[in-house]
């Protein structure tokens, strides 16, 4: 680790002011679960480390039809929610990563803004059609759909002088259910493939009304598999239909080869398996919803 100045701020305005002034010399830090290992290995060097972990306006989850989640809300707090629908999906995702020590420090905004391909939160946000609320030093804010937030591996749509302040998650429509399936070779390891699915069923026909299938962790950014989702919409969610959707996902996602953990061919096998399981699990849950 190289020396840097550690600045703890109390407001987003103070943080943004530093970002505007220092440019890339300053980096925001919240839980530090991505940045600190890089700093330790000197793979990243900064002049200013701006700690936003205690900024009150970045904390907490407001439930109001949907969810409004402060960017510095910790995984621990996502896990502890007792909600259903999107809240339950986020709780599951936050609870499925690494270990308690990490979950006690890591934040939802940190995961989204660091945007490593292996992270769980970016595809979760896309699955939930979340909207990223970003703010600039002049106080202006803009909304970025989750699907457009990551533009590449570790690259976000944020400007240099802009920060994520909130994640807005719309509520589910009635009768909708979710499933998340991920694969990691051992507990604590990054997922090699991640599938999220939200399905709503027509209460009369039990056919799929809306389907949203998202593949994460296999490619550089989350992939909304619209063709696979479209294949299911209006259809009865049979095992055959789920298999068909799975084949479509395999075509729609372009995984990157990981020399240590998984070849492209293996990732495609995982996508195939997980999509099928994800769709069937979401269907079973949705059937309970429409009861």
């Amino acid at each position, binding site marked *: 680790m190289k020396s840097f100045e550690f600045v703890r701020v109390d407001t987003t305005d103070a943080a943004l002011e530093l970002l505007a002034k220092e440019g890339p010399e300053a980096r925001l830090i919240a839980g530090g679960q991505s940045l600190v290992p890089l700093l330790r290995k000197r793979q990243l060097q900064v002049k200013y480390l701006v700690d936003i972990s205690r900024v009150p306006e970045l904390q907490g989850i407001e439930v109001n039809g949907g969810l409004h989640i402060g960017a510095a809300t910790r995984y621990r707090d996502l896990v502890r929610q007792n909600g259903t629908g999107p809240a339950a999906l986020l709780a599951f995702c936050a609870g499925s990563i690494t270990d308690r020590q990490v979950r006690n420090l890591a934040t939802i905004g940190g995961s989204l803004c660091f945007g490593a391909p292996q992270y769980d939160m970016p595809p979760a946000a896309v699955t939930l059609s979340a909207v990223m609320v970003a703010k600039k030093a002049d106080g202006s804010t803009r909304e970025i759909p989750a699907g457009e937030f990551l533009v590449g591996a570790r690259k976000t749509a944020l400007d240099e002088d802009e920060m994520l302040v909130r994640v807005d998650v719309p509520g589910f429509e009635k009768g909708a259910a979710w499933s998340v399936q991920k694969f990691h070779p051992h*507990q604590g390891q990054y997922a090699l493939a991640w599938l999220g699915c939200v399905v709503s069923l027509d209460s009369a026909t039990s056919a799929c009304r809306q389907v949203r299938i998202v593949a994460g962790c296999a490619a550089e950014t989350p992939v909304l598999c619209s063709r696979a989702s479209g294949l299911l919409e209006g259809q009865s969610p049979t095992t055959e239909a789920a298999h068909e959707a799975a084949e479509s996902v395999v075509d729609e996602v372009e995984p990157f080869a990981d*020399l240590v*953990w998984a070849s492209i061919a293996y990732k495609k*096998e995982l996508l195939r398996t997980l999509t099928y399981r994800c769709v069937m699990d979401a269907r079973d849950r949705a059937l309970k919803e429409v009861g």
Partner: protein
Amino acid sequence: MKAKVQLKVGQPMPRKEDLVLLTGQAKYLADMKLPRMLHTAILRAPMGKANVTRLDVAAVRAMPGIVDVLTPDDVKGKVEPWGDICSDLLIGDRMPFAMGEVSYYGQEVAAVLAETMYEAQDGLEAIQVDYEELPAVIDPEAAAQPDAPVVNGSLSREFGYGNVFDSYRLRTGDIDKAFEEADLVVKGDFSFGGQVAASMEPHGCVVDYDPSTQKLTVYSTTQSVFLVRDLLAKALHIARNNIHVLTLTLGGGYGQKLQLFGHEVIASIFAMRTGRPVKIVLDREEVFSAGGRRASQVRHSELMLKKDGTLVGYRENFYHNAGANSHWANQIVRIGTQIGMLPYKTMMENLYIDGNVTYTNTSPVGALRGFGTPQSVFCKETLIEYAAQLLGMDPLEMRLKNSIRADECPYTTPAGQKIDTTSMDICIEKVAEASGWQAARRAPKPYVGVGNANTMKYTSCRHPAFDSDLDAVRMRLETDGTVTVFSSGAPQGQGHETFMSQIVADELGVDFEMVKVVSADTELVPWGLGTWGSRAAAITGSALMIASGRIREKLYKIAAHIMEAPIDDLVVSGNKVHVRGNPDQGMWIQQLAQLCAYRTHQLPPDVEPGGIEAIATFDTPTDREDPSGRGNFSLTYSAHSDVAKVEVDPGTGLIRVIDYFQATDCGTVINPLIVAGQHQGALEMGQGQALGEDLIYDESGRLLNGSFRDYYFPVASDFPDLNNHIDVPAPSEMSLTGAKSVGEGATVTPPAAIANAVHDATGIFMTEIPITAEKMCMALREKERRGVEQMSWPPESIWVEKSRVEGVAATPRAAAQE
């Protein structure tokens, strides 16, 4: 004679070591601070093979906080290359730096000394270094080919040829005759990955040099203080009595802290150049890339048997990846291979094994829990599984039928191993019963399987290179009746103080609480080899028995004289020496110790006055290898029979070990808590190597997974219940404690047991360890595509070479070894 009172040996005494560890009070090397202490950091090579064409450190010296810089030029002609594990060996292929030529990723290139660790790291960044990258050799079999690039041109090659610097040949019987007479011969091509120990505590040292006395004090994380002292003395041309090596609390070793490392030599030179203490603690990538690892191997194996399942011979040609230096590699090949042939006695009548120890441009291997046996056991046990399937036999029954039996001991195997006692056959029966083997085989469930594997593991070993297998203790009965044991062991979590206290409590009749153990300090403890090879309870323990006996005899002499009692009637118990059957009378041991020290005129004339001390060394009555590779290398052998139950996810290839059973003979159990802990930890390490642990190098020799982020490392939730363990003790007649080895057996068998369970679950023989989920998944897909019941992965990696069995067709092919 000892009194028959409540003995401590055999009791689950809570470990004396635990309180300080559990309360965070233990002092580790990283905690050490000395006045005026400096910090060193090492520049390491970023590729497998290269010429260093430029190394300019001028800019570093001008930087703030920098005290000194060390380059290859500074050590050339001054530091003597050191050999693998002991002084006076032929092999001296190790220097503190790459001497002009880099031969592995992570090799030391230069070092910086600074006031703080951070300044030292800043200094590394200012070193100007250019490399001319050269083609690297990663695969040990490729490295052995005549046209392979030379791994390290600067090595002197006193024996061996090309990159093969040593080989081990084991021959018994007549292999051609065995092949001729066999009804079935099965062959396989196997490979095995390079696991690392990943001890919680990384390697490191603090070196303090006193210019006035020219004495070097080395606080090391080593498992053998005398090994470090003697090798360091030789490398730096210092008298051995002017180097003091000691350890603090060690956070794990597992064999990988059993060398003199480059960083220890570098820190010593810096300390001598500056007259100030020097510290280094390696980071995790340094430990992964240069801290030792298990030798990856490529093996071509061939099992010969009769129709009735009697094994009649075994032929093998294999390549053992030593890495770029020779540390331990030739020892591992000998011991791991020869011991790995146990326990199948008729198979051992005809052995023909060639082990080639080859240099590659990868991290030098070190010792690691299991020491070459996991690899040899895996190949052999997989071929037995295959043969049993072809013959329609139960593989466990087939193993039992061929195993050495308890009732035929003492038994000398055709390879020369002297089995004093064993419960090998009983272990197989018990593990089958406990695991519900028969029921599981009768009613198979899809993608769930059971697998068995067996081994008889060494208990320490006479290492072929240095012809010694000893350890030593010195004991002092203090004048308050407490006992201090000075042990040459270097405990890393094995509970030496606890088990030694139990033994001393029984042997001297003192309270368990009154015994203290001092370890791993060259100025305090007698000369010994240290702690590795599951040797403490049997070897160090035997030395402790001898020393205790000497102290007891002296106490009896004094007590007999004063009490005017016949010496043969005396016993020890309750901190007293007393006449048998009369524990209320007699003399306190404390009194006797005081008499010997302070009232010397009361002593009998033939008793030497002074502190009551004894020193004892136990060297095992074992053999060196004979020209055919045979010999009794180990004092005694501990039986180990495992059954793994796995469940394979056909969608992802993920293998879950859902249950694991072990039945073992570790001889006399001194402390069941410690034994259970050893079996648990060994199983975890065994499961890790079976299912994923492996250092991965790319073609240029770059290490791709030198961190816990990238290295497969199972955690608690990945393991089954670790408590399904049955002790079947057959006390050793060779060790004075009756103990055999414990702590490595369950690292040896899991790759084989788990692979066999995977076969039972899927019909696929997995011949590459680790069996990653990816390999499993791809194998399952290929099996579906082919529409077959049985296959191997990689495809056709096992086959029938010869068959006289009805319904079994031979599909011989030109094997790679020919």
